[in-house]
């Protein structure tokens, strides 16, 4: 089967490049494969941005909670409780309604060399609003994972570091954070996978797909509606998701090898999948 024409038309359709109209009749297998694959770009975008920012903020919040700064840790506890205790689906709805109600204003942000105008109406668009919700959600879950790992660091490791006279900064960089990441890597891998799966909720909750550019599930259900045959589009999206899930596992395993390369074999911790479920 030659898909070149379809790839040219639809490979980047989800980000607005290519043919305007979606295929309406005579939908071929090729159309379905290419267009659903094009939707995966959105899923990857949501996942990577939310995960990258979430990782940094999760470590920061976990350290704040570990050190028990009075008001700040309490506030973070409440934040984590709210985001871990409620369904992501409802969070999307709430956030979207709040974003819609925000006054439509623009802020000028003065960078050194240029000025950009930030508008609050961007929050009602999936590329910013949904990413913000996913970021807050994954930060809460990862913060809990990292906080648990921090609490389980052996006391004498930290005391040894202090006895050596390491500064606080070096103590965290050399001892605490590496140990924390090593101990929680397995759970964090699962969190990354669940976050990736959760990205499918974006266009199914409240964020409208602007000019029919949606994620993989948006197109899959579009085809299921149009052809009245669920047996083609859903298995296709399943294939995409399983392969990317395997890719995520591979990447995290490689990082795990890097983390644990100095450890003797019996202390290396293999990534255990799906032992700690979230969301």
């Amino acid at each position, binding site marked *: 089967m030659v898909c070149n024409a379809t790839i040219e038309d639809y490979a980047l359709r989800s980000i607005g490049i290519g043919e305007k109209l979606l295929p309406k*009749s005579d*939908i071929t297998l090729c159309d379905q494969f290419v267009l659903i694959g094009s939707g995966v770009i959105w899923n990857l975008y949501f996942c990577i941005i939310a995960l990258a920012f979430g990782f940094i903020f999760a470590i920061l919040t976990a350290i704040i909670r570990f050190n028990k700064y009075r008001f700040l840790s309490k506030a973070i506890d409440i934040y984590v*409780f*709210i985001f*871990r*205790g*409620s*369904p*992501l*689906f*409802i*969070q999307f*709805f*709430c956030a979207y*309604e*709040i974003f*819609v*109600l925000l006054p439509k204003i623009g802020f000028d942000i003065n960078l050194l060399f240029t000025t950009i105008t930030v508008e609050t109406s961007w929050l009602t668009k999936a590329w910013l609003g949904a990413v913000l919700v996913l970021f807050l959600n994954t930060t809460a879950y990862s913060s809990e994972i990292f906080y648990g790992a921090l609490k389980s660091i052996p006391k004498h490791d930290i005391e040894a570091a202090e006895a050596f006279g390491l500064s606080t900064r070096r103590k965290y960089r050399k001892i605490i954070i590496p140990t924390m990441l090593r101990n929680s890597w397995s759970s964090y891998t699962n969190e990354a996978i669940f976050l990736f*799966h*959760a990205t*499918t*909720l974006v266009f*199914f909750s409240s964020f409208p797909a602007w000019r029919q550019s949606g994620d993989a*599930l948006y197109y*899959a*259900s579009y085809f*299921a509606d*149009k*052809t*009245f*045959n*669920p*047996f083609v589009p*859903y298995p296709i*999206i*399943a294939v995409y*998701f*399983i392969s990317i*899930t*395997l890719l995520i596992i591979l990447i995290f395993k490689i990082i795990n090898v890097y983390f644990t390369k100095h450890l003797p074999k019996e202390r290396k911790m293999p990534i255990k999948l*799906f*032992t*700690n*479920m*979230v*969301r």
Partner: protein
Amino acid sequence: MFEYCTDPDVLSTFEWFSCYLTNGKHLLFYKSFGLIILLLFITAPLAALLGLLAAVAIKSKFLLLRLFSKAYANIVRGIPDIIFFLFIPITIDQLIEFTRHKIKCPEIVDSVWQGSDFVVCGAAKLPLNSDPQWIHDIYGFLLAVFSFTIVYGAFAANTFYGAMNSVPQSQIETGKSFGMSRKQIYTSIIFPQMWRYALPGLSNLWMLLIKSTPLLFLLGIQDVVYWARELGGSKTSIFQYPHPDWRVWYFLSLLVFYLLLTKISELILNRISKKIYVPI
């Protein structure tokens, strides 16, 4: 609900709200919370049972059964659950209607897939077009229960499989050397002990199940999300109780409902896990 509610335009704020929050549609909204609880209490035991069966099947001696159950447990967990919630109901629906079509209307030889339509004869429709609304509702709810059971059965299978493997091997070997059969080893050594190991995983699963119940909305069921959207949307003065867009308040109340549900569950599960010694 109250006697003074006949003309809402003349009421004071408090009375207006007391009437507004108890009108017919709001009572349906409150009932849909019961639907969520009902779904939880029906699905949880079913999924646990399916998971247990699948876990035993993964450990079975028959290659085919083993492969099938392994594939089930792994494939379902590798795909976002929302895809299953969209896929399973429509599949089951088409399967049943196709079978009924073949039995009830054998005289029609045309294929049921005509172009982009799925056409079955009137007698094969399920539920029948002439059936009352409540049968349609129950049918939809059963499809939802089925989908949830399939998805969470796979997660439970994994938990039970891990728990069964955590029962000390020496005990199983002791059982074998006493001449116990496979069945006896399962019923008197593995099953009684695995619960302690499975409890943390099962608690997690319960939380996960709670948090996926709003997906009922995607199955076209009139659940809490449906009513929150319906009631919260802005109402013009044609309606008895006009108000601007209040959806955000409705969704925030759903948020609070779910927070309460997970918090209460957490407290109860913590109590149980304190009573049962959970080895790690």
